[in-house]
């Protein structure tokens, strides 16, 4: 009778060895030297990855947050000047600014993986590749793409933490969108996200803020413009937003746009002012394509629909 189980058993063993290799990126199990693998990063580039990265450099604060969230900080060799979350990241050596990383320093640190962002694509990435560096660019343009970026890093570094984090983020989003998807247009307040006050700039379509507003059940009054347009004060008064959310730099306490929204005399009659619905949000939360984007979403939801999300106490 044991004979009957030999072939299925062998099959099972063979399958369990080879099947995992057919999912997505063919990466070796942790700890083994393997054959080279091809990764497609978020800018559509194909990158060869020979082994598991041990020395990682992050060129963007969002990438740094992802690394810490996945528990990879021991492999993180260097960060940028602006990487400030979590606070331990500030202790790491820096390779320069966000848009101006120092190529020499990067190369000198001998990383085997560099996580870049979309602004590095034109000049920095080619320069790094010329010197034989392995660069993966993370360039999410939507919340879902942020989750995909986290998943990609998890796959590259073989961290299951990534899928746990992705699932957690997805469930947070679902909690919110479940309650807001069924709102009618009239139930969605007019929202304005003020990036800066002088010149007056708002977040238009194609930005994270725009997506967050929509997911949180609001209507972005600057949604018909794309990117970060400057808009006239007239337009804001005429659009009469019911909620205004501005960015605040928690590090320096700089909150000029918030003060503008709260004190500019010509805005005294807009709904947001009359109902005291002017809020500040940490610019690092809403501007970074990292794991805390869902925290930003929760704040947006609380600001835009406090009646739907009374439990969001932050």
């Amino acid at each position: 009778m044991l004979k009957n189980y030999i072939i299925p058993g062998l099959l099972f063993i063979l399958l369990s060895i080879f099947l995992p290799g057919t999912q997505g990126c063919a990466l070796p199990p942790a700890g083994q030297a393997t054959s080279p693998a091809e990764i497609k990063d978020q800018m559509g580039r194909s990158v060869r990855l020979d082994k598991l990265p041990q020395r990682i450099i992050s060129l963007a604060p969002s990438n740094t947050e992802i690394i810490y969230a996945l528990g990879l900080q021991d492999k993180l060799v260097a960060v940028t000047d602006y990487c400030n979350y979590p606070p331990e990241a500030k202790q790491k050596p820096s390779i320069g600014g966000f848009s101006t990383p120092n190529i020499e320093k990067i190369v000198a640190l001998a990383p085997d993986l560099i996580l870049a962002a979309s602004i590095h694509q034109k000049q920095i990435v080619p320069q790094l590749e010329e010197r034989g560096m392995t660069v993966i660019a993370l360039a999410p343009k939507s919340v879902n793409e942020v989750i995909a970026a986290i998943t990609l890093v998890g796959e590259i570094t073989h961290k299951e933490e990534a899928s746990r984090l992705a699932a957690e983020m997805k469930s947070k989003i679902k909690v919110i969108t479940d309650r807001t998807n069924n709102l009618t247009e009239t139930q969605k307040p007019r929202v304005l996200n003020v990036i800066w006050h002088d010149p007056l700039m708002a977040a238009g379509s194609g930005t994270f803020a725009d997506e967050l507003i929509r997911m949180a059940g609001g209507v972005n009054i600057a949604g018909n413009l794309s990117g970060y347009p400057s808009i006239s004060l007239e337009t804001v008064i005429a659009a009469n937003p019911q909620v205004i959310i501005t960015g605040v730099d928690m590090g320096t306490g700089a909150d000029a746009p918030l003060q503008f929204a709260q004190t500019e005399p010509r805005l005294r009659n807009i709904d947001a002012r009359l109902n005291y619905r002017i809020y500040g949000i940490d610019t690092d939360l809403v501007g970074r394509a990292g794991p805390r984007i869902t925290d930003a979403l929760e704040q947006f939801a609380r600001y835009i629909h406090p009646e739907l999300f009374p439990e969001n106490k932050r």
Partner: protein
Amino acid sequence: MSLPPGLSSQTPPSHLVRWHSRIYAIAGLFVLLIVIAALATTIGSVKIPFLTTCQIMLSRLPWLHITPFWPSGVETIVLEIRLPRVILAGLVGAALATAGATYQGLFRNPLADPYLIGVAQGASLGAVIGFLLPATWHGMAAGVIPLFAFTGAIISTAIVYGLARVGKTLPVTTLILAGVALGALLGSIVSYLIISSGEKMHSIIFWLMGSFSLSQWADVRYVLPYVVVGTGVILLYARRLNVMQLDEEQAQQLGINVERLKIVLLVAATLITAAAVSFVGTIGFVGIVIPHAVRLLWGADHRFLLPLSVLTGAIFLILADLIARTVQAPTEIPIGVITAICGAPFFLYLLRRRKRVIF
């Protein structure tokens, strides 16, 4: 001595001084200014019916009683955004054109503009420092930046004046050279600061290119006295500025205290430029080209050149601002771009049409 026949030796023919046509021009331009200012208030990135705007504005007159039927937001737009903006644009345009005409007359140089002796660069440096100081983050930038800009403008002009002075005289060439040199130095410092400004770069560059986007009545209240007083003083000296077009020796021989005239006009022109630039940023082109256009059309007599420059400059800048805020509504284009793009071809056209000596 016998006179050639046909010439009256009693009274000169009236067309000789061309006063009548120019006085008509002044009156005409004044009316045009009022019309254009009113029109500019009715147009904007938000569509408001023409009649509504007129009624909103008329409702401010104490003796007319019009019951408001318009939403309060619309009234805010017309009376607190557009009206002060149009008035400020007119004031700044008038100030820059008058200062430009004055500098051109004072230096007897057609290339002179209000920024020649370092006013613009000084104001820019002051403003950039104001932007970069951490203190301004917590307050409204609108309150502090103009003060810094104005101070910068005055200090840089004082330095240029001190550098150029020789004993009791102020040689004009030295003044220009000192102004250009100091301007270049300040400009390079400004450039360096901009590069190191990080995320404030956008605000700074926007300011430097000039904008009326957040102009309010408080700005008008600050700028108005400087411009009115400064322009008034300059207009008083118009006749003497004519005589200054001869060389300095002849002017002295005709009774002009040349050094006092230089100082008075320099101070007045610098004050009105500094006041204009502090609130709005450095708007180019107006100060150099408007006086030339006026000269082409109505001659170089400063008694008419100056008031006509006031009116033409005001009209020009109101129109430029109108274009800046409507062409790509609701986005606003920096006004320095508009003044150059629209002004240059018009001026070239004038130059081709008239083709005569204007200086």
